[in-house]
C-alpha cells in the first residue's frame, strides 16, 4: 500500500518548484496528471531535470486558452483532491482557474500555490526565479563572503525547498480534510523558502555580531571542517571540530605529536593557529591516496567522505544496497535512472510509477477516462484543443 494511494492531483505547473511539489505527492502514491500547454513545460529541454521533477506523472497536453480545452481542465479538476500551480501570480485569474474560481467547480479541493513571492505584497507580480531569491535573500552574498563576488548555488536550493514545504502544507490540508471534509488554499513561496534555508542566519538581536563565513572558492570553514587533497588528486571532506574527533584524527593520521603541540592544545589555540594546522593536515593527507585515508580514518571513526562525482554516487555501495536509485524505461532514451524516494516507511512504500512522461503521452488515455469517445478525441485533436504525443513529435 502507498500512503497517498487513491488521491488525485492535477499538476498545472512548469519549471522546477511546482513540478517537484506534485512529484513529491506522486512519490507517496497519489495519481498525478500534469496538464501542459501545446508547446510543453519550458523545462522540457533540460532533459535530466525535467525527467526528475516529473517522474511518476501522466502528461496531457491541451490548449487551455480555448474554451473546450478549459472545459477538459475543469472536468479533471472537479475530480481532483489537490491542484498544484506555480504560475506567475495573476495568470490563473485571467484563465479562470484561480482558487476562488476553482472552488466553484470543486469546493473541497486543496489548492497548492508554490509561487515566487507569495500572494500579496510589493513583488507579487514579479517573475520568480530561484537565483533571484538566492541573490536577494543573502544566500549568494553569504556564500561568496565579504568583499568577494557572490556565488550562484548549483543546487536550485529554493526551487526544491519551496515544494518540500509546499508538499508538507498540502499533506497537512489533506489530513485535516479527512476529518472535516473541507479543503483550503495552501501557499508557499521561494521567498519564504529562502528564509527557511537561512533559519539560523536570518536572525538579529541586540549585540549579535553578523559574521559572513563565506569566501571565494571556499573549501571549508576552518582546518577541522575542510576539504583536503590526497596524493592521487582526489578531495576528502573532513569534519573534526570536536575534541574527541580531533584526537582521533591525529592518531589516525599517525601524527600523535600534534596532540602535544602547544599551538593546537585547545580549541581556542587551534582557532588561533588555524592556518598552520590546515597546512600540516594538507601536507599529511597529500602524502597518500584517497583510498588509503578513507580506510584508515573510517576505521578510527573519524568523520570523512570522498568528494564523490556523479558516476561514483550512482555506483555507491550504500546507495545500491538501499535501492537509492531506481531505473525506469523511457520510450526514447532506453533506461533512466532516478534518485529513490526520500522517506522509507516500515509499513508502506512510495512508488515511482514511471520516468518523466513525454509531452501528450497520456492525452488520449486521460480523455477516454473522462468519457470522451474516440470520435470526440479525434475532433479535439483536429481542432488543436488536445495534442497527442505522436503529433507533437512530428512537428
Amino acid at each position: 500500500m502507498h500512503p497517498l494511494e487513491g488521491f488525485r492531483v492535477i499538476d498545472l505547473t512548469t519549471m522546477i518548484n511546482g513540478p517537484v511539489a506534485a512529484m513529491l505527492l506522486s512519490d507517496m502514491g497519489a495519481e498525478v496528471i500534469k496538464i501542459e500547454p501545446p508547446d510543453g513545460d519550458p523545462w522540457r529541454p533540460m532533459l535530466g531535470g525535467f525527467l526528475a521533477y516529473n517522474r511518476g506523472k501522466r502528461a496531457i497536453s491541451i490548449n487551455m486558452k480555448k474554451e473546450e480545452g478549459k472545459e477538459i481542465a475543469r472536468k479533471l479538476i472537479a475530480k481532483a483532491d489537490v491542484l498544484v500551480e506555480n504560475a506567475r501570480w495573476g495568470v490563473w485569474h485571467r484563465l479562470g482557474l484561480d482558487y476562488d474560481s476553482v472552488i466553484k467547480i470543486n469546493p473541497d479541493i486543496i489548492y497548492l500555490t508554490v509561487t515566487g513571492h507569495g500572494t500579496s505584497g510589493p513583488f507579487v507580480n514579479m517573475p520568480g526565479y530561484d537565483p533571484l531569491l538566492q541573490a536577494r535573500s543573502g544566500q549568494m552574498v553569504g556564500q561568496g563572503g565579504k568583499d568577494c563576488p557572490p556565488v550562484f548555488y548549483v543546487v536550485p536550493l529554493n526551487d526544491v525547498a519551496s515544494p518540500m514545504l509546499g508538499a508538507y502544507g498540502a499533506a497537512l490540508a489533506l489530513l485535516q480534510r479527512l476529518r472535516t471534509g473541507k479543503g483550503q488554499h495552501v501557499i508557499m513561496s521561494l521567498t519564504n523558502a529562502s528564509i527557511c534555508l537561512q533559519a539560523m542566519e536570518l536572525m538579529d538581536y541586540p549585540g549579535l555580531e553578523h559574521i559572513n563565513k563565506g569566501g571565494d572558492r571556499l573549501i571549508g570553514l576552518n582546518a577541522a571542517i575542510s576539504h583536503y587533497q590526497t596524493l592521487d588528486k582526489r578531495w576528502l571532506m573532513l569534519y573534526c571540530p570536536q575534541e574527541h574527533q580531533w584526537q582521533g584524527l591525529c592518531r589516525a593520521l599517525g601524527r600523535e605529536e600534534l596532540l602535544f603541540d602547544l599551538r593546537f592544545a585547545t580549541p581556542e589555540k587551534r582557532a588561533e593557529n588555524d592556518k598552520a594546522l590546515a597546512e600540516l593536515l594538507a601536507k599529511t593527507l597529500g602524502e597518500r591516496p584517497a583510498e588509503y585515508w578513507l580506510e584508515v580514518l573510517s576505521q578510527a571513526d573519524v568523520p570523512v567522505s570522498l568528494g564523490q562525482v556523479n558516476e561514483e554516487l550512482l555506483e555507491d555501495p550504500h546507495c545500491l544496497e538501499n535501492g537509492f536509485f531506481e531505473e525506469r524505461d523511457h520510450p526514447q532514451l532506453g533506461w533512466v535512472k532516478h534518485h529513490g524516494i526520500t522517506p522509507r516507511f516500515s509499513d508502506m512504500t512510495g512508488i515511482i510509477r514511471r520516468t518523466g512522461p513525454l509531452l501528450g503521452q497520456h492525452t488520449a488515455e486521460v480523455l477516454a477516462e473522462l468519457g470522451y469517445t474516440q470520435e470526440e478525441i479525434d475532433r479535439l485533436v483536429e481542432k488543436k484543443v488536445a495534442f497527442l504525443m505522436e503529433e507533437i513529435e512530428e512537428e
Partner: protein
Amino acid sequence: MKQVLAGFRVLDFGHYIPGPYTAMLLAEQGAEVIKIEPPAGDPMRSEKGFVVLNRSKKGMVLDLKKEEGKKIAQALIKKADVVIENFKPGKADQLGIGYETVKVLNPSTVHCSISGYGQFGPYRNRPGWDPIVTSTATVYVEQGGTGIASPVFLVLPLASYYSAFMAAYSITIALIAREKTGKGQQVDISLLNSIMAASCGGLVNFEARERVPRSYQQGGSPVYRLYQGSDGKWFFLALGNLAFLAKFAIAIGHEEWLTDERFEGAPFMILPPVNEELIEMFEKIFAEKTRDEWLEFLQAEDIPCGPALSVEAFMDDPQVIANDMVTEIEEPGLGPVRQMGVPVRLSQAPGAIKGRSPQKGEHTEEILSNSLNYSAEEISRLKQEKVI
C-alpha cells in the same frame, strides 16, 4: 478551523538541527511538542540558531541512561502521536525510545528517525555530519565544477535543512495513512536521501546524457548569471526563457541578437567557449551603468533581475514583511530576537508561533505532574537522583 495538528502530541528527542527543526515545523501547525534533552542539554544550545529551531516547544530534561528516566519517557510515548529522534542509528534503541520499543508501547505512534545515511545499509554507522553526507552526495564537487577545480564548500547546512522539510512532510503522510489504518509506523529519513532529492535534476542518469563541463561560481550561462554594475555592485540577470531574452535584447537595442547563432541553446545550454565570449560582452555592457540604474531600467521592462544583498538587508525586505516572515520574540538573556515566521500558509488553519524556546528543563515538573500525575514528593526524589 483549528490548526491541523492541534491535539497531536510530539516528543522531540532531537538535537542539533534536523530533529529540532522538524519538530518546530510541526509545533507551528498546532502540535504540542515536548523537547526532551539529556542532562547536559542539546549541544546546539551554545549556537545562536537554537532559539529559532526550538521555539514553540515545551522543554524537559530526562536522563534516559537511568532506568527511571527511561520509564518516564516511555510513559510519555504511550500518550504521543509522533516521536522524533536523530541519534546515530542504534542509539535510540539503547535509550529505550527506538521504533521497536515504541511500536509495542503505542502502536499508533509515528516514529521518525533522521540520520546521516539512514537506518539501513553499509554506511548506517558512519558519523552522519552534514558536510560529510553532502560530500558523499557530490554536492561540493558539483559546486566546484568539473575538471581539476577544487570542490566548493557550502556554508548553509542544506542537507540538514532538507532532511527536516522531508521529515515534516513524511510524518504528515504517515499521519494521513494512520487515519485509514489506525496504525503508526517508522519513518526513516536520511540527510543523504534528502540532499539527493534536492539535487535530483543533476543526478538523473541515462545513456545519452551529456554532462556540460563547467566551473563558474557566478553562473555559466551568459543570460542567467551574476553581473556587476559600474559601481561594483552585483545583480542577477535571469533571462529564464526565450521571451525574456528577446525582451532584453530589444530593450538594450541589440535586436540582432534574436538571430545571432551564438545565442543558440539559450537560456541554459550556451556552451564553452561561446558562453565565455558572451559573458565578456555582457560584462562590458553592464559596466556602463550602476547596478541600481540597470535594475530600474530592466525591471521597468519586466525583465527578471534582482540585486545580490546581505541576509541582514533581507530581514527588512518589503516582500518578506508582507509575507509576515520576520517576527520578533523576546528571549531571556538575548532580548528581542528577530527571526523567521511560519513559512507555509493554510488559508483555513493558519499556523502560528507559540512562543520562545524553553530553558533547559523549564517544563519538566509541569509535564510530570500534569501529564503523568507525579506527586511533588516523587518529583523531588527524581531531582535528587538526577533523573530529571
